[in-house]
């Protein structure tokens, strides 16, 4: 598994589109890699110095220049055109679904604090509560998280969801996602934030709606203060 060019299993609606872009680029660059590298090796063998053979006195070819410049340029344009809409869907400010469940996340050395809206589904009301290093969400439901940082830059990274967003002191950044699978996943900090950076992790739990409702009810009895 460690040697693989395949991406690990994705568990959000973003994963399919991001992974597709990755595989498209893998295919294009893979072809380029083999053509160029094998061509290079072929030249090294075929054109090695041998007695009686002279190099050809060629200075270039305008036709070749135009060909390989155009092919490269068209390829990168295609990659750009394909990538743009995916980026927009993930990071675009107007792409957050209206019915996304609101959450808040506060990144600080070296913990994640998640604030939940409680049973009323609204943040900044009396039934909000916070948990340390635990993110609970509902499968197949979008959630939008206001991400803030207390002290230095951190980065919210859930590999299985293909989501990454830096948390920047002074900024409040909305991050949205929609998990597609029930289970537990890992959240890692992905921006150097000090000596505890390597251990700034959290557990992400994706529940069915029923399981989430039950978990929420239990939180009423068991709310810990930071």
């Amino acid at each position, binding site marked *: *598994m*460690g*040697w693989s*060019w*395949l991406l*690990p299993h994705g568990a959000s609606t973003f994963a399919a589109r991001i992974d597709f*872009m*990755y595989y498209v*680029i893998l295919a*294009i*660059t893979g072809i*380029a890699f083999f053509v*160029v*590298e094998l061509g*290079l090796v072929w*030249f*090294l063998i075929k*054109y090695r*110095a*041998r007695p009686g053979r*002279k*190099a050809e*006195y060629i*200075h*270039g*070819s305008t036709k*070749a*220049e135009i060909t*390989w*410049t155009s092919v*490269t*340029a068209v390829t*990168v*344009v295609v*990659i*750009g055109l394909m*990538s743009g809409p*995916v*980026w927009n869907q*993930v*990071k675009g*400010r107007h792409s957050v679904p209206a019915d996304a469940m609101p959450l808040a996340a506060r990144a600080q050395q070296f913990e994640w604090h998640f604030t939940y809206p409680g049973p009323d589904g609204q943040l900044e009301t009396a039934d909000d509560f916070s948990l340390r290093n635990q993110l609970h969400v509902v499968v197949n439901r979008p959630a939008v998280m206001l991400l803030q940082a207390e*002290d*230095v*830059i951190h*980065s919210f*990274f859930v590999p299985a969801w*293909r*989501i*990454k967003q*830096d948390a920047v002191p*002074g*900024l409040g950044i909305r991050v949205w996602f929609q998990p597609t699978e029930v289970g537990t996943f*890992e959240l*890692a900090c*992905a*921006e150097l934030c*000090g*000596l505890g950076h*390597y251990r700034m992790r959290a557990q992400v739990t994706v529940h069915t709606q029923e399981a989430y409702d039950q978990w929420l009810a239990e939180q009423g009895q068991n709310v810990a203060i930071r």
Partner: protein
Amino acid sequence: MATTAATVGQVGHAGHVDDRSFLRKYIFSTDHKIIGIQFLIMSLVFLALGGTLAMMMRWQLGFPGQAMPGGTVLPETMAPGGVLLPEFYISLVTMHGTFMVFFAIMPLLVGVFGNFLIPLKIGAPDMAFPRLNMMSFWVAVSSGLIMLAGFWAEGGHAGAGWTAYAPLSEAPEYSGVSLGQQLWCLSLIVLGLSSMLGAVNYITTVINMRAPGMTWFRLPLSIWALFITAILVLLAIPILAGGAIMLLFDQTIGTHFFKPATGGQVLLWQHLFWFFGHPEVYILILPAMGMVSDIIANGSRKPIFGYESMVFAIMGIGFLGWIVWGHHMFQSGMNPTLGQTFMISTLFIAVPSAIKVFNWMGTMWRGSLHFHVPMLHAVAFVAMFVIGGLSGVFMASTPVDIYIHDTYFIVAHIHYVLFGGSLFALFAAITYWYPKMFGRMMNPFWGKVHFWLTFGFYNLTFFPMHQLGLQGHMRRIYDPTEYTFLQPLQPLNQFISIAAFLLFASQALFALNFILSWFTGAKADVNPWRDNALEWSVPSPPPHGNFAVTPTVYRGPYEYSSPETSDDYLPQDKRLPTDRMPASQPAGD
């Protein structure tokens, strides 16, 4: 010494008697060749130091929490009982990057070869400003000493990465580092001065001091590359210095440039740093590309394919390099719409780089390839730069970057272009110009052994980092085993560490070859590689003043296997009966 442009047939300065003292000749020298060699020695020392720091990092990554062999010599604040502390690991990461970028690769490419090659290859007796040149070196040494001092600072050396993102870099309460980070800023400000002095010198020299007949389009590509690089240095370094001054002020005198609570902007640092930082990485590759062009043409006994395209590609990379910096900041909280625009410019910069790769291949196509040691390294450069460049396409795509940003995929990319690229080009260049610098040849057998060991262990070390990154392995992590999803990758981390140790050990061959050949290497001819450029028509090493008679240039530097001569090379300054004399005016056209 006069520094006006030379005229045809003028007696060069090498005709004078050299009565300088030892101190003036070798220590406080204004001779560009000596200054180039001084930069070479300084940079190789920092290269070794940067590599040593990396070995310590790889120990911790491969064997987390285990006492490092020899680690007990380190103080308790770094590695109690030989086990690296997390904050020490972070300063290793920071200083490895800092030493390699600023004190190894940049001075090797720009300080060494800019200095050594420019006057020789354009037919000039020295740089336009020889004393400024000397100052540039000694200011660089001062900067290096300031940077080294940080290891003794209370709180440890700088610990915010070589990128020094604020607020971590300006808040000792968060980083635990105060004096170390301040010394880091100060050192780079001083180094910036050294770089600026060099840039001014190189640009002026290339514009004003070319020998008669050395038109712009007869310049070797190494000189074109160094010239464009010098312009990048001139424009980019002041931004780094400015940012570092702002950071230093935030750290010491109470300003708030990057402190949001009091009106500052955290992202301002990133914009300043990367606006410098992206041109910087082209500073770190263009001279390498230029020298590789010279060496591949020589090793193929064939003109460079598409010389004009190569020149325009260098210019294109130099220009486009200014408008891509935001690709380092896609996930930073920068406006996502800006992300789209930077994606477009970043994808486009792939084009001139690809043009260069195809032209190198075109040079070798139908050539007569001689695999001397510099050619081996130069061809490896092409092979590995391709990998580094292709991996860059993944990051250019903003959605894919969401996943691979700040993972080992980026680390793989960086090292494929900087080590697989620049450092292999440097091995090629050092070996190639060693005879001209020292009058002796490096040992070719050990050169080949060093090449193959390095090439093998290098790829075993860095290629698997792509895989680590694709599985989500983050950067700058002291102990990957803290994460369940990374635990299965630990055998790969160990493999990489062992390959890295073997890679590092193999460099002993280069170091020994370099040092011993100085004393016992085969005495070098004037032109051991049968090259066309002007430095190969003067003794090895050239005298002070370089040319006894100012050369006259009749053609470009890549006339190999020309039908006009029975040799397979034709020097730039060799006059054939069919050649016209250039007009007797200063070579400023």
